């Protein structure tokens, strides 16, 4: 197994009667998918890694370093949210530039870097466009360009492409996958589509009621569901020799 990228150890979090416990290991440079029904805790896991929620106990490590106590911006992590990734009153270049300096004070070299990043995600020459002048897919490309200039080792996708059509969603996933191969980052995405996981994810984790019930090689997890809840979720019969519980 490759060097550890993202590790969650005995991570506890909860609101009232709703409690989650996560243990997860994603190798550095891998593409991981989190699948499971709504309310399984997928977005909560990403929020904990992103630093937007504070765990009750347990630890989060990235590249072997414990980041549990760090503020969101200090973590080696970038999150792409489902929506509101961009500031509506700032143009594409400014939105990307915020990834280099949160006060938007950029020198010439940084501005050039912003333009390159936009070109890299297929938005060359669209620097001055406001979000409302871009399509839904283009807006998420701008957010992706910002994650490029931030160059954080872990990229979290909290269903940023869920509102796009199937073809466009596949294009965006392929783009993320290509960027991952180029830069060596670790990607963790939340998905409702097992087909998306199959397309890009090396490993897949199945979540159910706040627990990770299965994790491993994507094809193995999806083809031979060894847990009844996973089989129910996928709508297939449990694989031979599965153990309950």
């Amino acid at each position, binding site marked *: 197994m490759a060097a550890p990228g993202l590790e969650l150890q005995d991570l506890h979090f909860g609101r009232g009667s709703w409690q989650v416990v996560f243990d997860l290991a994603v190798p550095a440079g891998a593409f991981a998918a989190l699948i499971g029904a709504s309310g399984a805790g997928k977005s909560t896991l990403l929020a904990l890694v992103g630093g*937007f929620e*504070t765990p009750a106990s347990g630890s989060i490590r990235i590249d072997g370093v414990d980041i549990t106590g760090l503020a969101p911006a200090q973590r080696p992590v970038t999150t792409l949210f489902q929506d509101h990734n961009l500031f509506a009153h700032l143009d594409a270049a400014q939105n990307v530039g915020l990834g280099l300096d949160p006060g938007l004070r950029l020198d010439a070299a940084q501005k050039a870097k912003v333009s390159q990043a936009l070109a890299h995600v297929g938005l060359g020459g669209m620097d001055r466009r406001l979000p409302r002048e871009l399509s839904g897919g283009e807006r998420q490309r701008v957010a992706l360009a910002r994650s490029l200039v931030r160059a954080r080792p872990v990229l979290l996708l909290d269903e940023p492409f869920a509102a796009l059509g199937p073809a466009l969603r596949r294009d965006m996933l392929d783009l993320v996958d290509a960027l991952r191969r180029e830069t060596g980052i670790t990607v963790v995405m939340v998905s409702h589509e097992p087909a998306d996981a199959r397309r890009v994810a090396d490993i897949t984790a199945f979540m159910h009621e706040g627990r990770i019930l299965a994790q491993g090689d994507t094809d193995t997890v999806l083809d031979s569901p060894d847990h009844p809840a996973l089989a129910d979720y996928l709508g297939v019969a449990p694989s031979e020799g599965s153990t309950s519980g």
Partner: protein
Amino acid sequence: MSALPVHRWPAGFALLATLGLAGVALAALLAAVPASAPVRLFDPYTVRILGFTAFQAVLSTLLSLAFALPVARALARRTAFPGRGLLLGLFGIPLVLPAIVAVVGIAAVWGRNGMASALLEALGLEGLSPLYGLSGILIAHVFFNMPLAVRLLLPAWSAIPGETWRLSAQLGMGSGALFRIIEWPRLSAVLPGIAALIFLLCFTSFTVVLTLGGGPAATTLEVAIYQALRLDFDVARAVLLALMQVAICAAIALLLAASGRNAASEAAAGIAAQRPDAARPGARIFDAGSITIAALWVLLPLGAVVAAGLSGPLLSVLGEREVWLATLRSLLVGLGAGAVALTLGTALAWSARDIAVRRGRVRRADRLELAGSLNLVVSPTVFGAGLFVLLLPLGQVFSFALPIAALVNGVIAVPYVLRLVGPALRRTAEHHDRLCAGLGIGGMDRLRLVEWPAARRGIALAVALAAALGAGDLTVIALFGNQDSITLPLLLYRALGAYRTQEAAVLALLLVGLCLALFLVIERTVGGRTRT
């Protein structure tokens, strides 16, 4: 729990300032209640004033709503006639127009020697009798509150989804059925709140009654408080009247708060659909008539102010040093009121935002904002009377006239800031808190890059409103003003009182120009270019 900080100290500071100040004013009043109070509380004169105050307020409210309903319906039915936007802008002017200027304009239209009277006489009929008394008060109150009611009623119509009109067209509903089945249920949800607001405004009306009323037959509590303090030097009586006023306003405000929670908007695909009754000739004529009469109702007094001012002794009035000093004082009061309203209002809205969005305690946040609006209950006169009683023993009552006018008018304008800035702040946090945290945008960077662009238009509008209202204030300055603190409204009031009509016309034009300029300059410079 969310890791984002919740700032409580701004609200603490703002509440201390607003409620504390109102509390101090009320405490000062209570402390000044004479021992013989219960005996004098309901003497026949006071009962008569109380009766007239309520009577004119009820009539003003009913007339304003009766006038506003057909106008609002016509504007809701005609969404695309040329000049519609301009007309709605025109309906916003009475909101910032100093009451005393409106009185000058209304007298020029409806007075003994006004335009309406001249028209009647030209037709061989009898001219109008003088404007003073109940009829004048009602005309002025409807002038202010009909446009307000129209603007408050219109959202009830625009909230009706296009799908509903399409469905009603398919079912063949006539105009009456549309009103009964579709429009009335929505209107009846908002009407009590609007009626309570207008009643409150007319119940506490000061300038209109001071100038157009008079005598025991047409005096309201507000004016009686002023007269007791400034003319009769009867502090005890002023205190009793003020407390009576607060008790009644509190009761009405509770009604208002209870009815203000039903702004539920319906989720709809938002298809554009014409209402089925818009094209009928009868409806067209009725709507055109309603809109024309309403436009003239507001436009004529405004036009009369401009015309009379321009034909008055412009040069001699504008050449007087005292006029420019008064203008400068009014400007200072306006800017001060804007600064006070902005500071207190944004502080409250900021804390309420944190509590609503970052702690999920929306109702607690709403209650916090409501506390900032409690000053609706304590009218400027009562506020001023409290401070007057407080400062009286110090012998310094008149030396603080301008700061007190700025302070009281600023506090009174806090609800505008809450309504215009609060939603933008909450939206920013809802949409961007996580993104800002993830990118490390905080402190001044967040203020400059995220909060300011989202809130600046609301801030500009609220500050512009507060400044214009402060510059046009007569209530507080009438209580506290002396020779050294004459503002433009007070100068105008004195000219009217001395029947220097031509001079008053020029001063009215100058005052409306000042308020309008203050409003537009603040709105444009602070608000920046309007984004579409």
